[in-house]
């Protein structure tokens, strides 16, 4: 029982850290209730996907797991992971969060989308670790560095475009285009993220060294692009937004409340740099699997850098010197 509790704690930790940072940063704008609803919707969306798969498997003549094993890696990544997961998250964001009376700005939609992604990732992580109870520690480390931040990145992309649509109320065509992007961009990124992993799993019988290398290179490319996109969007939504003043409810986050997250982010950056160094040394000495150490360090480095972000200094100083 203690091991199971430890497994659950370990499964929830990466998502809780990322959710804690975003909830702290947006707390004054979003409010606690909407943040909790977003996390709840993430949990609900994960169970909905699972329930549909379970029900599909139990219906006579419709075996979704057989169907998925017959699909190619790309088909699986698109039809099993990217399309259904991101569509459910997007629909919940637009039907529940956007209709909530506290959701009145683009920033609210952005943070909610990230929290929905992290709620989803928490459930998925628990189920994966419970399903791999023999080697849950290594699976947990790998998923904590790749899959959980991955879901946060899909949420960042979805939330950014949904927020842009919210900020363009006067142009219906632009709004529609942005909403379509908010739905499709995470689907595409999720599919590309899962595609090399699922191809490797599907083609495991006829896998060759060159195929594995090309898939690892593709994975590296996708992770780097996704990380760069997440950093760029986070910079816009967490820092530049205060200069551009696109939202009407802008309030500076508490500097004191962000200090623990800067420390956590610093630890993540140091850990990622250590892994990069170790991977470089392994490459130099010609050891295998150097890339396998390099890949999981990309997202922690990205989120470590995002956790160092703060509103522009002149605004912080202005607030600090303002009379109470």
């Amino acid at each position, binding site marked *: 029982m203690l091991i199971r509790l430890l497994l659950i704690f370990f499964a929830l930790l990466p998502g809780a850290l990322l959710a804690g940072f975003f909830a702290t940063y947006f707390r004054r704008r979003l409010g606690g209730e909407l943040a909790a609803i977003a996390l*709840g919707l993430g949990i609900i969306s994960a169970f909905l996907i699972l329930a549909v798969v379970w*029900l599909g498997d*139990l219906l006579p003549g419709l075996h979704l797991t057989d169907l998925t094993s017959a699909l190619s890696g790309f088909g699986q990544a698109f039809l099993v992971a990217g399309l259904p997961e991101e569509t459910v998250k997007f629909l919940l964001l637009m039907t529940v969060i956007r209709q909530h009376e506290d959701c009145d700005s683009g920033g609210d939609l952005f943070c909610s989308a990230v929290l929905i992604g992290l709620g989803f990732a928490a459930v998925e992580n628990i189920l994966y670790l419970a399903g791999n109870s023999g080697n849950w520690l290594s699976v947990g480390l790998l998923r904590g560095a790749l899959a959980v931040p991955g879901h946060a990145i899909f949420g960042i992309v979805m939330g950014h475009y949904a927020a842009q649509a919210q900020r363009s109320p006067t142009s219906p065509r632009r709004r529609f285009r942005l909403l379509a992007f908010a739905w499709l961009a995470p689907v595409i990124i999720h599919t590309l993220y899962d595609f090399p992993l699922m191809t490797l799993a599907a083609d495991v019988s006829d896998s060759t060294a060159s195929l594995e290398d090309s898939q690892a290179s593709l994975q590296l490319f996708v992770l780097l692009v996704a990380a760069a996109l997440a950093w760029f969007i986070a910079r816009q939504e967490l820092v530049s937004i205060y200069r551009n003043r696109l939202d009407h409810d802008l309030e500076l986050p508490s500097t004191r409340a962000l200090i623990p997250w800067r420390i956590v982010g610093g630890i993540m950056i140091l850990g990622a740099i250590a892994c990069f160094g170790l991977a470089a040394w392994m490459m130099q000495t010609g050891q295998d699997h150097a890339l396998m150490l390099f890949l999981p360090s990309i997202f922690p480095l990205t989120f470590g850098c995002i956790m160092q972000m703060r509103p522009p200094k002149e605004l912080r100083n202005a607030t600090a010197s303002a009379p109470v």
Partner: protein
Amino acid sequence: MTDIAVTQEEPAQLKSADSVIHDLPEQGTVRTSRDDLRDFIGPNAERYLRAYDLRQARRRFLGGFSLAAAFIPLAWLMYRKMYIAAGILLLGSLIIGLVMPDIGPGVGIAGAFGVLGKTLYLSHAESRLRKIGARHLPLAEHIALLKRAGGVSWVGGAIGAVIMAGCVLAAIAAHGQNG
């Protein structure tokens, strides 16, 4: 069109079943928190209002047994737009199921939701009403916001039902395989 701001609700007034929270002197009408609650609840409001009245009169703390909350708790929570509670229920059931696989949450959850369901919903509604009341909106906007924030969601209920059906059938299949 009356554009009179909603007067701020005193905490003490919330205790009273017929507390006046909208004063419309021009029309000579009053609007009570019970009216707000009726607009917020939507379908089957009278059942919940009966439980509310008993609570306000301090004759009963619990609102009475709710069959829907007992037998289809997740679908009921989502139908009534209590998404935080639905998320907690799902995550809690998953964790309890993993930590104590022999016990499981089943009957305990049904009993707890059956007994506490109406009270839970009334507490949720009152907390939302306080937040909406604090906005001091004109009456028409106030009522529109109440109806939007409250009411029911058939889609939410359907999602809850699908999740429950999936979980039950998966549990039956797992039980059959183990057996």
